[in-house]
């Protein structure tokens, strides 16, 4: 499986990942952080799909399967996240993660 133009893919998915991470680092709003995580997650999914196209059949299929699984998984994760957001909001009245620094040295 030589000749695979890895570079341009990496540019794209790498960019997605970077965007996600950047958001995760800079945002203070829990919801936005969740979104950022999703963006980053999509970089991974994109990789699988893309590589699957070049992989031998069996592996290729598994690659697409994995992509699908991951999409589902991402959804669950977000759900859990939202649950926590709600609870947090109920207690603290805010979803600004920067204000939750009770646990520290």
């Amino acid at each position, binding site marked *: 499986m030589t000749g695979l133009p890895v570079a341009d893919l990496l540019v794209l998915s790498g960019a997605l990942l970077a965007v996600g*991470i950047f958001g*995760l*680092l*800079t945002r*203070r709003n829990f919801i936005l952080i969740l979104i950022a995580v999703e963006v980053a997650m999509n970089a991974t999914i994109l990789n699988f799909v893309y590589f699957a196209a070049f992989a031998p059949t069996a592996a290729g299929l598994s690659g697409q399967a994995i992509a699908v699984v991951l999409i589902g998984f991402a959804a669950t994760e977000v759900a859990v996240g939202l649950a926590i957001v709600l609870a947090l909001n109920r207690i603290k009245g805010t979803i600004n*993660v*920067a204000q*939750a*620094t*009770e*646990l*520290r*040295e």
Partner: protein
Amino acid sequence: MVLGLLIAVGEMLSPGTYVNSQFTWLHLAGSPGTFPNGVSLVVGTLVDPLSALLLLVVTVVGFLVMLYSIGYMHQDRGLPRYYAELSLFLAAMTGLVLSNNLLEFFLFWELVGVCSYFLIGFYYEKPSAASAAKEAFLVTRIGDVLFLLGIFIYFYHFSTVGPSGGWAANGFVFANGTAPYLPVVSGSGSTLLTVAGLMILGGAAGKSAQFPLHVWLPDAMEGPTTVSALIHAATMVAAGVYLLAITSVFIGFTSTDQLAIVAIGGFTAFFAATMAVVHPDIKRVIAYSTISQLGYMVLAVGAGFAMVGLYHLFTHAFFKALLFLAAGSVIHAIGTQDLFKMGGLRKSMRVTSAAFLIGGLALAGIPPFAGFWSKDDILGAVYSQLGSHPLYWPFFLLAFAAVFLTAYYIFRAWFLAFSGDHTRDPTLPHAHEGPWVMQVPLVILSAFAVVAGLFIFLPNFQALLLNGAGATGIPPVYGPTDLALSGISVGLGVAGIGLAYWLWGNGRVYALPEDSPLQSVRKVLLHRYYFKVAYDWVGLRLVYGISRGADFVDRYVIDGTVRGLERVFGSVSNGLRRAQTGAVSDYAGYVIAGLLGVFVLLLIVAPYLLSKMGGG
């Protein structure tokens, strides 16, 4: 003690016999290198002329002092302690005399030392007594340490070869009267032997209070007078001389050693006498005289006449003990030791004054008293050796001069104490003789002081001395051979007495004119040449200062480093904890930083290291 006396007497009657028995005290494992079949340190007894001589002294004087103590000490507290320690001392002293090898000798040597330590400190409530005891222990300790080194050298280098009987692989038992070890030493060994000899000298100097380790003996007078008489006049201090004697007889000294010994002895004889000249304390005067007399003995031994030295030791023991006991009964009677407060005791204390007079005459070397014969022998013997080394001269002269001083200071003391018609200090209680238990020893000792010297004319005694010397160098001269020499020494003695009479006789008190140049000399002498001051300075300022400094370093530098380390860790820890902000985005930042770090490791650091290590 009686047994000891019998042994001694028996030896007297049949001179030159040896009784030797021993058993292994300590067996050290052998090692391929040094001692192929190991070493046994043995403990045994050896009775030979030398030991017999000293044994006689120990037993007789010991017995008399015990007797005397009954009267002298009767109102003291802690008598059980006193007698226990005294008996222990006598036992140890006997052991020392009878021991048949250097190690055993050292064991008892230390034991008598500690006994003297306790007895000096008998009145331990008195700070002066306590500190005197300390001083005695430490100063002698210095000598002991050197002695120990001497033992090592002999033991290590000369214990596996040598004459039959002694120096066997099982330690260094004295060779029984055979030729001393010296001739056997080869050239290379002789330097070591010289060193060893010097070490022995050091030990002897410590015990016998020879210069420069003499400071402790005068202070030791803090102990009861009986103790001074027994330990610090007759027996223990003589042990140093005895050590030199047996060493020279059984091992032998190199000529260098001999010179050193002569030097120490001669110088000390004079040096101590000068200090005795001015001292107001009756006991200390006698103490200084002891040092000086010991100097004579050392001188004799150094010159190669071990037995002559011991002969003087023998006589000296009696008259010096006599002097002390006499002084003791004076102190007992009027409760002061200050000569200048005394006076006119001749009337009230006839026995005592007579005893002191006899002792003084003996010490001054006036014939026919004991001191004359032995001292005269010493001088004669040394004189006969002057040829062997030019450097003998000055010390011979010093010793000779000391004769004059001796006579002077002892009679100064006698006149101050006994002449005149009343005590200078009226407050003193009226003097009277002590109980009979105190007088009898005085009488007996006086008798000895008169006749002990004459023993030399007993054939047995002569034979004893002759055999004792074994095959040692020169057969010593006995009796007044060189009349001129004797004449001079006696003359000096008489002159000294005369001077003493002129200055102090009949209750006169001679006051040195203030403007006299001698004042400064007197001051120096009174301060004992500032030796004690110097030693205290070294001990207290220097050593203690150093140790204080060391303590400081220990606490704040060495341990400080440890605690510093703790602090460093602590601060690092706190620094790291500050990173734990609690803000989740910071944590996410750390994760990303970590990710980048991992990339750096994977892509840059690791390959670099691998290329360095060559496949890891």
